[in-house]
Structure formats: structure tokens, C-alpha cells
């Protein structure tokens, strides 16, 4: 999904009734934030964002998803219990 699942595909999927997952593991934190804004311009429906528990800024990424009220987080490797909480 890296480099492929961007705002167009994610919002297209969401509008079609599916759950699109943004490939944010190949984006910087800022790019991820921008992509989320762009997705919301294109759809009202829920969507998810992929994160990698081994990325250095995982804490900030998760904080951002929570404050942006993203409905679904998808983890590339199994997350620790603390992350899910």
C-alpha cells in the first residue's frame, strides 16, 4: 500500500462504502496530516490510517490520529498494549 493508498484512493474507497486505509508509513508526519485533511475534503465517511509501531515518531503519529479523530488505525506490525490504549 505504500505510495499507492493516497487521498484519492482512500476517499474513493470510502465513498464506495469500503474502508480505505491511508499508506502513511511512506509519509512524513506533516504529509500524513495533510493527507488526512485532503481525504476529509473528499469524503465524510470513515477511513483508516496505517502506522508502523517501529517508527521513531510513532508517539506523535498516534497523538495526531487521536486529535484528528481518525476512526481507524491499522498497524504494520503488532502494536504494544500501551499504543492501543
Amino acid at each position, binding site marked *: *500500500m*505504500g*505510495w*499507492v*493508498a*493516497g487521498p*484519492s*484512493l482512500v*476517499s*474513493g*474507497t470510502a*465513498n*464506495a*462504502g*469500503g474502508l480505505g486505509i491511508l499508506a502513511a508509513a*511512506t*509519509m*512524513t*508526519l*506533516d504529509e500524513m496530516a495533510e493527507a488526512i485533511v485532503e481525504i476529509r475534503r473528499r469524503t465524510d465517511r470513515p477511513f483508516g490510517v496505517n502506522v508502523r509501531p*517501529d*517508527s*521513531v515518531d510513532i508517539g506523535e503519529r498516534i497523538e495526531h490520529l487521536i486529535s484528528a479523530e481518525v476512526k481507524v488505525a491499522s498497524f504494520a506490525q503488532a502494536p504494544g498494549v500501551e499504543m492501543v490504549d
Partner: protein
Amino acid sequence: MIDAVDVPVIAAGGFHDGRGLAAALTWGADGIAMGTRFLLTEDSRVPDAIKEIYLETPVTGTVVSRAIDGAPQRVIRTEMVDDLERSRFTRMPLAVLNALRFRRLTGTSFRDLIREGRAMRKNRDLTWSQLVMAANAPMLTRASMVGGDLGVGILPTGQCVGLVEDLPSCADLVEEIVTEAIAALDRLSS
């Protein structure tokens, strides 16, 4: 898996049509996840020439390779992949250059790059040169999947690529899949 857990289970791997959805539901899954099938839609921003390569790839045209970033990954079989398989550790200078480019792209500092590197080595038992190659891989994939560079040839794919032959909109695709799944389940219960 479905018997072992209480949470919803989404089946993934090779799904691309309504019959697959019906089969997964029959197994007890709550739904399916698809990658390749959705890569090949109008809404996907992958360059047209790259989509064409995917559409033309037959069922025998993919390979699982560890040479790209150390972890097994299915890709369309290209000269680049054959090359990487043959000469894994002789591409050091290029790999170092791309590791630096990737660092800039994702905003990772040198210290963090080393830290991530140590963690990755520990988790996947890689040598340093394999690790540098691993950092290389995203740049190569990006050149193909975003840049549309036909010469690079790192094209991640699922096994079902040989069965996908069209580029519908997401809306048409989802409708088609659901309709087909309902028809399949009706056929079974009639």
C-alpha cells in the same frame, strides 16, 4: 484464527472478487481486505503506464523476493528483481545514497536512522549492507509507483494480479463485488 479470537476478522491475501468475499464470509470472516484489486482502479493515482504493466502481468509473472529489503515481498518479476537477487550485496554505494535520500524524505535524523537501523537489525537479523539495501527499497518503489519510471522495476503486487483485467472506479468495483457475492451465496442456498 476465527475460532481463536473474539474480535472481527478480516480475511486478506489474493481476494479480488465477489466469489472470494462469499467464500471468506462462509469461512466465518467478517469481511475482506484487498490491495492489488484496488491499486487497479481509476481512483488509484499510480501512473497509467505502471497500471498497464500490472494488467499485463500473468499469474506466473510474480515472485517473492527477500532481495528488496530483507523481508519477503511479492513483486512483479522484472529485470531489476532478477538483478537484485543475483547481486545482493554489491550495490553498496547506490544503496547508501538512497538511504540518505529516504532519510530526507521521511524527515528522519541521522541519530534516529542509526537507532531504527539497530532495531531493525535486531528484529530481522540483517547485516549492515542488507539494512542499507532495505533503506534503498522505498526509493526504488517510489520511483516506480509514484514517479512512473518504467526502468526501475520494483512493483509490489499480490498474487491475484494475473486475474485482474480492468480498471473500474472504486464505486463500480465495490458494487460489482457485493452483487457477485450475493449471487454466489444465493446460488448456494437455493
